[in-house]
């Protein structure tokens, strides 16, 4: 479930990155890479778990699935927070700088 949610987040981000004109100003590529990196790592995790438990992997207990979904959404939220921090620190549009140095 965590893998699935992260893959959806990565795919949506990549589609938005492709469509928007302000992709470098918004550092959307960084967000895409964060989600794709995590999705690939969780994919490897899933493969190893599948090798270990076989078909049982696809029939998780509802409680485990709910916990995994909760984890997945939390991971997506954390990815957004990391991206926002990078965006505000690097400030490609100069918004923070302009706000701080505004003359009154």
């Amino acid at each position, binding site marked *: 479930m965590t893998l699935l949610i992260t893959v959806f987040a990565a795919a949506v981000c990549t589609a938005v990155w492709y469509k928007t004109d302000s992709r470098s100003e918004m550092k959307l590529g960084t967000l895409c890479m*964060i989600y794709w*990196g995590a*999705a690939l*790592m969780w994919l490897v995790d899933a493969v190893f778990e599948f090798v270990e438990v076989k078909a049982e992997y696809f029939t998780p207990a509802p409680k485990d699935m709910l916990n995994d979904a909760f984890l997945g959404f939390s991971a997506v939220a954390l990815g957004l927070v990391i991206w926002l921090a990078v965006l505000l620190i690097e400030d490609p549009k100069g918004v923070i700088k302009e706000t701080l140095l505004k003359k009154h």
Partner: protein
Amino acid sequence: MACVTVPIVEAVITTITAKVVEEKEAKAIKNIGEENLPEQEKMPFSRKLKWLNNMLWGGSGLLVFEHIWHCEIVPWFPFLTAASDAADTAAMLHEMATAGVGMSLLVTAVWLAMVGISSAVEKKALKEQTSEN
């Protein structure tokens, strides 16, 4: 358990490499002179290395969060719960050698594919541009 440590180590190495490559590229541009640079050129390799850095750091960050979620990483020494027991440590090292290395290899393989495809696209675009001129 601690499979994420392998991609973190790789991320540290690639970040240092990206910094060194970036400095070398900046020096090369300084030597040539910015006015002598072609109108359209290939994307610098340091920028492509940043893709790998972002994938490794971003992915590792979210996986560390998952490990904290599952109480496999704790804020006190030895930080990894599996490191406090000999049997668990052996299992942890095995997981690092299998899943951890697998994660690093897959992310690097995907990045290599991205670099290969982008280089081919760049070559094609530059070829089309020169044939137009």
